[in-house]
């Protein structure tokens, strides 16, 4: 007897059409809303303050990624050292910086001057060294970078550690048995395999950081959202400027996603 497949096509098309219609209606309502002023959006999309905000957002994102990676590597090494004090320090760091909201950390760094009015480096008990007024040193940008990087370091540490844990111990045994030193085994066998696990996760972190930088607007970090807020603080075009900012975030995240896609493909 012939076997006939169950017919699913009909209902699938129906659902799809319904969804499409709903989406189209939603878009239409939003786009044609008299309260959404497209000329305003258009005039601010490439305005100088907005572009400088985009620049700061990108700079913060890249700097946070790099600093976070460095902090994360240092932390992962501490954890792997086998030294109980370093291990405990690792655990405490992760506990604190993952356990408190980024927003709180940013505000804290910005207000560090309240805790330490003068900061600097020098040799205790002597006049040697260099000190400065905290209020002058910790600009909103510096506070933003510190806050983001220290917070990110905690996540990076766990990602890096996970990457190394994903390489089975047998890989090292095999490397040693073809006459490699432990250092060679680490460089030639463990690191390349760990990196293949870590890199895709870094792509995700990049996108998370990119959007996370918007939080520095609470301390006037000069990023894209800070600029948008400054502008609508004067002309009251709140929605228009939020749309401007969102369009930029969407564009940047889309670019990052495409980069991530190609990166992952080249690793396979």
């Amino acid at each position: 007897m012939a076997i006939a497949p169950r017919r699913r096509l009909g209902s699938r098309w129906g659902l799809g059409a319904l969804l499409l219609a709903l989406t189209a209606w939603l878009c239409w309502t939003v786009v044609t809303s008299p309260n959404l002023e497209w000329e305003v959006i258009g005039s601010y999309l490439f305005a100088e303050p907005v572009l400088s905000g985009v620049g700061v957002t990108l700079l913060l994102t890249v700097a946070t990624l790099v600093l976070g990676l460095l902090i994360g590597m240092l932390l992962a090494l501490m954890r792997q050292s086998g030294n109980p004090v370093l291990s405990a320090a690792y655990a405490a760091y992760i506990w604190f910086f993952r356990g408190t909201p980024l927003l709180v950390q940013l505000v804290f760094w910005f207000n560090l001057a309240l805790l330490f009015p003068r900061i600097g480096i020098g040799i205790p008990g002597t006049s040697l060294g260099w000190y400065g007024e905290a209020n002058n040193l910790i600009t909103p940008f510096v506070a933003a970078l510190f806050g983001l990087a220290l917070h990110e370091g905690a996540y990076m540490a766990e990602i890096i550690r996970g990457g190394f844990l994903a390489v089975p111990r047998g890989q090292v045994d095999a490397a040693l048995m073809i006459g490699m030193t432990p250092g060679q085994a680490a460089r030639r066998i463990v690191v390349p395999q760990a990196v293949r696990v870590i890199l895709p996760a870094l792509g995700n972190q990049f996108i998370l950081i990119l959007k996370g930088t918007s939080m520095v607007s609470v301390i006037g970090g000069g990023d894209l959202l800070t600029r948008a807020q400054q502008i609508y603080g004067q002309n009251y075009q709140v929605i228009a400027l939020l749309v401007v900012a969102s369009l930029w975030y969407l564009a940047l995240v889309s670019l990052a996603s495409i980069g991530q896609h190609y990166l992952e493909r080249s690793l396979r």
Partner: protein
Amino acid sequence: MKGALSVRGLHKSYGGTPVLRGVDLDVAPGEVVCFLGPSGGGKSTLLRCVAHLEQPDAGLVAVDDEVVGYEPRAGRLVESSPKRLAMTRRRMGMVFQQFNLFAHLTALENVMLGPVTVLRRDREAVRERSMELLGRVGLAAHAGKRPAQLSGGQQQRVAIARALAMDPSVLLFDEPTSALDPELVGEVLGVMRDLAGQGMTMLVVTHEVGFAVEVGDTVVFLDGGVIEEQGPAKQVLRSPASERTAAFLAHVL
């Protein structure tokens, strides 16, 4: 002498539990020694201590008359530097139960890596020799594949080629066929039989009693961290002197 291995008074404990309790062994060049014994008897630990993947608590291992992991200095044996230990390890090759091929490299790259990066030999010459070795284990056609694209039996044969590429004096096998589907066991044992025929010194932990009878010169029965019985393969396997050996053999045969 090249291909000779000796073990003296090997002891190893994990967290106070003794796993090896004084193992002595002499392997002549070209000899094939098969290790049998119950799970947990210390067979893997013995091979890993021989290779110094684990540092023994006491006892010495020598390959080609070179002590593994220590060097004589001013009348005493001093722990070797990592570099020196790595040099000594080149005299041994190991084949693992889980193959442990380098996952990010192709079969050919796995075989070439040691000679190129450790021995610093000419890459083109190494490539030629590695292809020849892959041919010997019947895998010339799979040189460009990653381990994940190969069957277990194929991976294990690449692992054997990788070990051979370093021109070792002694090969250590830790249950090389235990992780394989039954129909793939034969192809790996076949390669090992060829190696034995070519005069390679081999220490083989295995549950393949048939292989031990046919290829093994000596059988060592390891139980509770000591050598319970050892002797010519056919003699130990057909008429064991120890009751524990007899009981174990009755169980696996």
